[in-house]
């Protein structure tokens, strides 16, 4: 028995070694590359965040920066970076408000348009579908640049269009429409502390954002069985009742992940804010990533910027864990 079982166990022992090594061989290329250009810089960045790394340390033979402990972190949080109008908590608060206000509008507008678009017997359905895909397929960064010029007070298409509409519909003088969308410092409404630039950004991002939500909602709408509406109609449910009792609950499983995705994207929407408002006026529309870029690109405070990026990482981690707890999206890790 022993003679028979010995080679068998050797066979078994050989196979697992090969089998256990294979997965790591497959992982090797990616993790070597990521180790060099991703994980090592990440660790280095955490070290940098505890130093006063600046322009003087940039040359290849420059001395090492001084260790400053938590000074960068504390200075960021208490707004002692020597930057005018900078406030960490304002940036974070605005970023969160910016994210939620956008996603709420994107999702509701997306569902509304999807419901209108998916009615049976609607004319020109195909043409609308083809047009509505355009904001998704045009590179977002180009759109941001185009809207930057569109919001120009003198030559932009927004003011010129409003002037034509105002004159023909309401008889208003075109000179009323020299709105300084980007750089007006006074708030348009005294009880909402948001500059006009915020509304310009919101308009642009709504233009960019709703079609994706409409596509997601359309897919979900088409999968709702028609019998449910038939049954509801027989039971005497009105159109609004049908929407809130059938359509809305059945859309939710599709819309929640899409909304979470939209939130992550909007929270880090660098391109739009950098190109449209540049974070202005007076840093009021600055979000976390645009501030970080300013710290590197303009201020050249690499140590401070590193600490700021660690803050971003921690904030995103908390947000991701929070949204995951809500959507239970983590379950698919094991799939």
């Amino acid at each position, binding site marked *: 028995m022993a003679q028979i079982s010995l080679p068998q166990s050797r066979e078994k022992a050989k196979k697992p070694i090969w089998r256990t090594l294979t997965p790591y061989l497959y992982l090797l290329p*990616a993790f070597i590359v990521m180790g060099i250009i991703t994980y090592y810089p990440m660790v280095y960045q955490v070290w940098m965040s505890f130093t006063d790394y600046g322009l003087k340390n940039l040359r290849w033979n420059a001395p090492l920066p001084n260790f400053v402990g938590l000074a960068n972190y504390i200075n960021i949080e208490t707004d002692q970076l020597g930057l005018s109008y900078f406030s960490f908590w304002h940036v974070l608060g605005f970023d969160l408000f910016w994210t939620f206000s956008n996603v709420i509008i994107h999702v509701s507008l997306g569902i509304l348009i999807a419901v209108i678009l998916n009615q049976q*017997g609607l004319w020109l359905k195909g043409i609308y579908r083809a047009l509505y895909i355009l904001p998704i397929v045009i590179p977002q960064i180009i759109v941001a640049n185009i809207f930057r010029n569109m919001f120009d007070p003198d030559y932009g298409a927004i003011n010129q269009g409003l002037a034509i509409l105002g004159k023909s519909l309401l008889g208003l003088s075109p000179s009323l429409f020299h709105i300084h969308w980007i750089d007006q410092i006074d708030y348009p409404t005294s009880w909402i502390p948001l500059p006009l630039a915020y509304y310009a950004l919101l308009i642009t991002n709504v233009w960019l954002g709703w079609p994706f939500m409409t596509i997601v909602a359309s897919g979900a709408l088409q999968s709702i069985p028609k019998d449910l509406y038939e049954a509801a109609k027989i039971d005497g449910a009105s159109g609004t009742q049908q929407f809130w009792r059938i359509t809305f609950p059945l859309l939710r499983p599709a819309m929640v992940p899409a909304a979470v995705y939209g939130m992550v994207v909007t929270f*880090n929407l660098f391109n739009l804010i950098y190109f449209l408002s540049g974070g202005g006026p007076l840093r009021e529309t600055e979000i976390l990533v645009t501030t970080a*870029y300013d710290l*590197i690109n303009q201020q050249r405070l690499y140590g401070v910027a590193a600490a700021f990026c660690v803050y971003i990482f921690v904030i995103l981690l908390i947000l991701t864990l929070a949204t995951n707890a809500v959507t239970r999206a983590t379950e698919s890790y094991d799939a």
Partner: protein
Amino acid sequence: MPNTEKQSILDHIRRIFTIRRLTKSGERGMSLISQLISQLLLLLVAATVIYPILWVVSMSFDPRDISRPTELRLNPFQGGMSLKAYADIIKQPTANPVSLGQLMFNSFRLATLTGLASIIVGVFASYAFSRLRFKGRQVLMIAVLAVLMLPSVAMLPALFVLLNKIQINIGHTTFNVRDSLLGVGFAVLSGLLPFAIWNMKGYLDTIPRELEEAALIDGCTPNSAFFRVTLPLSTPVLAVTFFLGFMSTWTEFTTSWLFLTNPKDFTLMMALYNMVGQYSDSTPWSHFAAMSIMIALPVTIVYLFVQRYFVAGLAIGGVKG
């Protein structure tokens, strides 16, 4: 008695059948009034969608050769068309002494090589994550996801100072890696690779495992099962992942703007940034419009054809990661 029973059953079937037919054909449709209201709303939405596009297109063909559009012009054919703006930017888009061809070549090189590198290096890892079971799988997947979650700007401080310390000597020329397209490529790849791994893993998860198992039974080794069965089947996702990487790098701005100083290395978006907003004082907007279209058109056309493969997929699977 049996006759009437039969009749009622037939009636019943007919009723079911007619309801089905009516709902399927959709002839029951909408009342005229709700049709008109819906059309009005959808036309309004369509108008907001094409308004910026018409504006930019007609500005780029504007025959008047003026620096700023003094009146709203949405019809590109109104008063004739001119290709002068395109001819001007092809020669030299900005004050920097580079042609559009050079800028496009730089962006194209950068986008193609980083896109290719991300799928070639990434596909093996995504296969391992999708198919193989091993110790530390969860931890390594979270390590990839953690990077994926991070915006690319948040890695720039370290990438900038680290790449800045590397000097490369080739023959008589010495160059700083940070101040080159090579350095930008490394920085871009650092963000692209985790995305590529995750995107391809999501697709590999949907390829039936039975296909590989059948290959194994037929005598394939696990490696040749990967190369002969799984890899050919995943060509669509390789192409899509490459294209997404290509598109994001084609319009890449943050890294190249921070890293590059030599106009000969500049990318398309850097040139466009010089034509908008605070830097645009001397640039005619028709040039800006033509430049935007030249950058956007190639990727937009491709995206238009491939978007249905992943816009829906993004909604279903992409987010769960």
